């Protein structure tokens, strides 16, 4: 009985490791696809059209402070964005 239990425990651990490996592989493939197809394509199109997502240019201004005119609405605090 003990040996069977031990065998089942090892089998379960092996299966779990295998499942983790499969999950990692799928994640890797998905992330590759998202990065190179999703991020990559959008980024290339944006660069071609001169769109920037970050303020990385160094155009000197009189002040770098950006005024905040709008106050957040109460309902906005219930949103994650």
């Amino acid at each position, binding site marked *: 009985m003990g040996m069977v239990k031990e065998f089942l425990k090892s089998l379960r651990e092996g299966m779990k490791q295998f499942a983790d490996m499969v999950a990692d592989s799928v*994640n*890797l493939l998905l*992330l590759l696809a*998202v*990065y*190179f197809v999703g*991020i*990559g394509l*959008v*980024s*290339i199109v*944006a660069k071609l059209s001169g769109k*920037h*997502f*970050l*303020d*990385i240019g*160094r155009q*000197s*201004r*009189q*002040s*770098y*402070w*950006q*005024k*905040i005119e709008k*106050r*957040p609405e*109460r309902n906005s*605090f*219930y*949103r*994650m*964005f």
Partner: protein
Amino acid sequence: MYILGISCFYHDSGACLIKDGQLVAAALEERFSRKKHDFSFPHAAIAFCLEEAGIDISAVDHVAFYEKPVLKFDRILSQHLEMFPRSFLPFFLALPSWFNEKLRLRRILRKKIGYRKNVLYIPHHLSHAASAFYVSPFEEAAVLTLDGAGEWQTSTLGIGRGQQLQQLAEINFPHSLGLLYSAVTAYLGFKVNNDEYKVMGLAGYGKPRYLEKLRKVIDVKDDGSFALNLEYFSFHYGMRMFSKKFEEEFGPARKPETEISQDHQDMAASMQVLLEEIIFKICRHLYEITKVDKLCFAGGVALNSLLNGKLFKHTPFKEIYIQPEAGDGGGCLGAAFYAYHAVFDQPRSFVMEHAYWGPQYTRAEMKQFLDDSGIKYKEYADENSLLAGVAKLIKDSFVIGWLQGRMEWGPRALGARSILSNPTNPKMQEILNVKVKHREPFRPFAPAVTAEKANEYFQGDEVVPMPADFMLMVYPVRPDHRDKIPAVTHVDGTGRLQTVRRKQNPRYYDMIKAFGELSGYPILINTSFNIRGEPIVCTPRDAYRCMMGTGIDYLLMDKFLIARADNPNDMWDSEQYAHD
């Protein structure tokens, strides 16, 4: 109304609970999990807060989270879109955690603590601002927040009036003073989000020789606004903080744990001077636009005590408040108070005058732990014999572990989980470093002084402000006392003092006074009760374990005095854990 504040998933996760606008409890998760800067969901900290209030999660009316996850994800995605394909590695390493937890807070709250009601998401810098203003004694104050980055904001100016807190101006990612300081921290071979205070300590040894060169990496205007020259940085797309160009300009980066040269010290000094210059400009501008002479300061940069100690001298501000956990861990506090005062429009009635909001242990619990563990101890019969006995031990240069009352909120040990020793012994710094802390010799130890005597020994502001109670101000030690308290006088003649008031912590205050009566100096060395690489101790067991693994001579818990020499030193060896 109960509001549970939560901050997590970046660094230093924490939780707090407020009831009808009064703080009930607050703690960082690292103290329970024993993982330094633990950023995981703060299970244990939440459980402690609820237990302290004597409620379960069903009694919590609202949860307030310290940032807006989708807005932050928007910034992360923007970084990858802008920096493709250079952002490849961070994308692979960071993205899974966004989908598994950071964007699934509601699900995590439901599954892990059974919370199913509304969640409020307070923007990161608004949480910082609220964490200082709403618990300050000020009815009206200018509010400055500076850190690495929140969602998009890295710096904000604002004003608080009564229940209202308004942001007036912002600077957004990637332009960040916090990230600039962190980049120099990394360049000097220290850990980002962990070792910034080491750069502060190192600055005292250097001359600002690189100041003019450093100005190339940041464009600063008269109003203190700034823009980084991103050619010198890689934090917005890579795993390193600074780029090759930074090394071409300043020389090769220091490798961790290698020798620290004069160049490194000068670089640290230059960074500190530059930071101070910029923040003085920002503060002057903030005063100009608000015309209020009280300042609330929050965000990780507000933990720069060297800067804080000079603020009054260089800016028009006359009063200042900095909350003990001004960094990200304190975001939960701001989120909860913002929800209560600004979102639910409730009046203010709370001022955070001390930092003791963590767990405490009763005499009976301590005694049971000692008896169950077979630990030899003695119990002082009364307060006077305790004070006289321990003061004598400190005077004789023994190192005392001190666990009393509720644990501190924030990164500093303030007399609840502290190591105390004799500041008048010139060898004490070396003794502490060798026997206990295993830390770099250039880092100074902090003096704890009774508040009314602070000006006698330190050249501080005329009225020493409340942040000094939280060890957030560095002042010069008066020249005639420097050689009398050498163990707490830094190489540049300064000390990061903690002022102690009796109403905050009577036994700690009396201890300092008792030592003063013996030595002539009502000052103690107060350093955090931990070894390098571990969080500050929380429980009696943590404290005993720390003592037995180090050279701490005695541990005082409540009135129980435990001598290391009386107990078997077979608990563990701290040396193998002594790393950052």
